[in-house]
């Protein structure tokens, strides 16, 4: 029996990463500031395997691609996903394409790990989600966990994957990132942190969690709320509120944007006939449209709404709160859909 313990979200990721590093000397961490941010792993594995990089994203992500092709299993940290813009060529034109261009003869077992998401007032150059933007590129796997147990299991699966995986960790779920970027040691600010996501039971020994399997977090009859990351917790809060108004909502946690678990999605739509996608990433040309499209392609008949981010995220907390999906917006969209 695998013993259980309670870990924080980011602790779980580093713990699984540590297990993978202990098991396989080819696994190493490269990235900005990892000497400080991953200091616990640094004192266990040394500077050769926890390798601090200069602020040169295009170089060290690009190097991660060929290091992976040549036998290493790099976990490359770009600090926050917004900075991936600087390294986009390595991801868009190389990591994602090598396998296809080589006729399937060469692969890129690289993990790109980045913090993502907003809700702490830092603005749209530091708070984007971008999973839909990355998922748009064939050849990339994009995982977005919402609980500590999933985060650890998915990190292990990402490292074991023979193809490039983007691993996105929401800052509101990761106490160390939230402290690094938003709180900075002060006790004078508060954020809307979903407690069910930051702390949770984890196995003593990690097993990889199959990538591409969504989890139904709540069963309902009237409508299905679909999301990833912090959005899942907002949906669960909304579902509780909606229950008071006798609306019964399912909450589906996709866990990965690519691959998209279509089967469980179809099942839920078939049952509830109403679908709402809650996506902290941008609304246009993203996850919400994709989910609607695959469901329509399958021939299902359903009514649809979405609660997403439509504009550049302002840094101010009260403006940001209006822009990011929140429980009130989800409830309002749900009620409107029920009345349709």
């Amino acid at each position, binding site marked *: 029996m695998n013993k259980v313990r309670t870990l924080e979200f980011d602790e779980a990721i580093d713990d699984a990463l*540590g297990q993978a*590093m*202990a*098991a396989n000397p080819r696994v190493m961490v490269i990235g*900005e*500031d990892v*000497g*400080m*941010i991953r*200091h*616990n*792993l*640094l*004192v*266990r*594995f*040394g*500077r*050769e*395997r*926890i390798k*601090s*990089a*200069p*602020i*040169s*994203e*295009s*170089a060290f992500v690009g190097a991660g691609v060929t290091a992976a092709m040549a036998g290493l299993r790099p976990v490359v940290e770009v600090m926050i996903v*917004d*900075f991936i*813009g*600087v390294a986009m060529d390595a991801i868009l034109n190389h990591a994602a394409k090598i396998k296809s261009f080589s006729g399937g003869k060469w692969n890129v077992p690289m993990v790109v790990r980045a913090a993502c998401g907003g809700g*702490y*007032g*830092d*603005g*749209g*150059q*530091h708070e984007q989600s971008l999973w839909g933007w990355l998922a748009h590129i064939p050849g990339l796997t994009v995982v977005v966990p919402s609980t500590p147990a999933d985060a650890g299991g998915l990190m292990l699966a990402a490292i074991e994957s023979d193809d490039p995986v983007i691993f996105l960790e929401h800052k509101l779920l990761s106490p160390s990132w939230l*402290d*690094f*970027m*938003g*709180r*900075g*040691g*002060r006790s*004078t*600010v508060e954020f809307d942190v979903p407690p069910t996501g930051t702390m949770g039971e984890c196995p003593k020994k990690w097993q990889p969690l199959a990538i591409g399997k969504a989890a139904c977090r709540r069963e309902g009859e009237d409508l299905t709320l679909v999301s990833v990351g912090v959005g899942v917790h907002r949906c669960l809060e909304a579902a509780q509120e909606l229950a008071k108004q006798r609306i019964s909502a399912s909450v589906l946690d996709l866990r990965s944007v690519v691959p998209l678990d279509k089967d469980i999605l179809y099942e839920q739509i078939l049952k509830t006939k109403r679908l709402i996608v809650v996506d902290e990433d941008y609304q246009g040309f993203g996850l919400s449209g994709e989910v609607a499209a695959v469901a329509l392609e399958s021939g299902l008949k359903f009514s649809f709404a979405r609660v997403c981010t439509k504009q*550049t995220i*302002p*840094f*101010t*907390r*009260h*403006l940001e709160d209006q822009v990011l999906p929140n429980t009130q917006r989800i409830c309002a969209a749900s009620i409107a859909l029920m009345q349709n």
Partner: protein
Amino acid sequence: MQPDLWSLYRLMLYSRRFEEAVAALWHAGHISGEMHLGIGEEAIVAAVVSQLEDQDAMALDHRGTPPLLMRGVDPVRLLLEFLGHPDGLCGGHGGHMHLFSVKHLSASSGIVGASGPSAVGFALAAQHLRPGSVAVAFFGEGALNQGMLMESMNLAAAWHLPVLFVCKDNEWAITTKSATVTGGNLMNRAGSFGMKTMAVDGSDIEACWQSAWEALCQTRDNGEPVYLHASCIHLEGHFLGDQLIRTSRHPVKEMRKMTGPLMRSFAKMHGSNVRKRMGGLRHILATIQNIRTQMSIKRDPVVILRQKLHGEELQLKLLEDKIDTEIEQVLEACGLADVKVNDE
């Protein structure tokens, strides 16, 4: 040419006091997100900005507050911006990392190195539309490892553009000691693009002013890029609440939080050998030790300039009191009259 030390002291001290007020507001929870201050780099910024002309442009990094204040942006609108007020410089949307002033042809970015391409574009527009004007790029030494800044230097050199590249070298790339992730010599690196390069002590305002004067003349008159490298300190670390600074200021409290998990991980089964583990531990201790030397006020440009003006105590007191009053008025205009400055 000789600098007017009194007007420079005014610019530098005003910026310092303004940012100290910002720090107090941030600590009190009035300002969200991160907060990167320019405390410690006021001399090189004042030296350059005080010699700019009306049509010159500025490409700023994540420490845009001092250059904008010194350029003449309304401090009330700047502070309102940090507070997220609709009357702020950018309507409360941008905050301190994303400051823009059309009137001052000034644009900032939170992406390290982005001021390079921005300055090149400003200079290209200057060449066509505002001949005789220049563009300044402010950035840190960490940005010199960013490809886009290297590419911008080449572009400015190849296209003969009037860009002044100003490196404020505080020796730290976020929480990583730059020397540990940088190859070669930065002066040589910039010089290899064929630009004139100059190095200056960023704590010495007279030297900074002289270098900035020469650099600006060169780029304005010849329409060629110049690289100016100033060694600075950053007394508040990368940003407010910087873990290294916190650990350095409150070692017992901060190390207590850090030590348990650190030692447990150090002793954990399965990992590297003891020598490598010790190497990791030594690296962390050395990093914390290194930041302590950065926090010394011996190289504080504001303190050093004040010492130079020593002897004129009455005039100093009048100026300093006046600045304190002005900052109080700014706070009052922002509805924050009761906020105590220097109160962490």
